[in-house]
């Protein structure tokens, strides 16, 4: 970006912000879909769920940790 931002710079920045927010929500919704699949798996597998739903459960626990809603602003502190 040049020293004095142009209108195109502003437009690009706004576009980037919108994409960031959209991606953040897509990831959050992915976690929700995995949760629904995990629920189906748990109901379908019954007593075998610990073994057969393991991958989904691990994926879901990773997603709820990583796929949090995040804004585009980053504040740096010392």
């Amino acid at each position: 970006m040049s020293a004095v931002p142009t209108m195109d710079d502003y437009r690009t920045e706004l576009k980037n912000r919108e994409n960031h927010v959209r991606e953040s929500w897509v990831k959050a919704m992915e976690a929700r879909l995995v949760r629904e699949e995990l629920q189906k798996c748990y109901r379908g597998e019954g007593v075998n769920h610990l073994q057969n739903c393991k991958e989904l459960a691990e994926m879901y626990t990773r997603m709820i940790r990583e796929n949090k809603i995040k804004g585009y602003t980053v504040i740096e502190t010392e």
Partner: protein
Amino acid sequence: MLSALLLIPLIGSLALLPISEESGVTRMKQIALTTSMVNFIVSIVLWGEFDSSSLQYQFVQEFNTLSFCHLNIGIDGISLYFVLLTTFITPLCILSNWDNIKFGMKYFLIAFLLMETLLIAVFVVLDLMLFYIFFESVLIPMFLVVGIWGGSVTRIRASFLLFLYTLAGSLFMLLSIMVIYYNIGSTDFTVVSLSNMSLDAQKVLWLGFFLSLAVKSPMVPFHIWLPRAHAEAPLGASILLAALFLKLATYGYLRILITMLPDATSYFSPLVQTMAVVTLIYSSLATLRQTDFKALVAYSSIGHMAIVILGLFSNTIVGIEGAIALSIAHGVISPAMFALVGGVLYDVHHTRTIRYYRGLAVYMPVFVAMFFITTAFNMAVPLSLNWVGEALSLAGIFQKSPIIGVLGASSIVLSACYSIFLFNRLSFGAYSQYLSFTTDISRREFMLVLPMLLVALIFGIMPNVIFTDLHVAVTQLLYAVEPVADLTNIEAAVDALGGK
């Protein structure tokens, strides 16, 4: 469509002007009520057409392209619900003073329609200078309404307190806007939010804006004007003060402090949270000692707004969405409380002193039933939007700071204390010897309170209707705090590699 929302109340005001006060009071009231109802219907259409997945401002209309006072209007998920609240509350304000304004009805109605336009303008303008202009201009009709149609001889003092407190606070906002214009060259919301201001500059500007918004919220020690203004204002003005004037501060925090000055917001968050907790506990305890029931409801409003502020400054999507939900809930339940105690009871018995009331359940069972539901919603019981908002706000602040969360949660107990005290004192026991025998709540009063309770109940059961529209708009308010990269370690690593 936004222009229509701004113009319809003005057209209604103009239609009232030629009608003479002697002959057409009923016609004036009908015109004012119809106008505000039409505006409410237009806002519902706007809500229906709103696209909740877009980050951009919608329904944008641009009237000039000056960098200073850039007159363009538009809404996003945050402003949408404040606009809806404004159009919902205004007809109820007009209905609330249907019979008890003895003189100057025409100007009273014009003042309310004018305030509707100005309040909607605050929520839809996309420029800081225009925000300030409309933020301040709402004060003038409210100052006149409290001063002219207020309850007792102290109304003049109350109206001056309202005017001077908020005006003095807003001076610092104006100075901050001037500094922004001087440095950035524009006061447009989007341009200001895109500019990179240093932390030091943000801190100074933040304090200027915060002082103004802290008076409006209000936060201790800037709260003195609110209980007096509430107590002395006519019912319609009390409703408008509780429902919308306090929400101007909520909107200001969201739109200016958190969006445009995120670094300073992060820096000052502990200060705001501390002030909010002090406000919450102080106002809740002060509520327990009130003898005037309108002042009691006013102090409870201060307490609820403190929870809203805790949610707003939690930097979590849960907390901020909860705070907005609680703002909306407070915007319907606090007016309902005012309508019941300041309207129904005061109109009949002409005293606001709690000690004169007792045993109303004997002669006013319907009133007591409605008062019970309203009191329960005011102390945030489940199934009400107040509960959803309060629980999410406290959950959000708990994630940010557990200690502040625990202190904030004291409001659950304290609000129950004063709510139950007021309800119990007014409703039960032997009928008070100071009161004359009266009939129950009238049909007009019933229809005044019912819509507010229904809104709190329906959105309390289905809060996702609100949250779906808020998600995208609130996401952009969140900020991530990351430590600055430690360059000394990098230099040491480079040295270890032989300077390569």
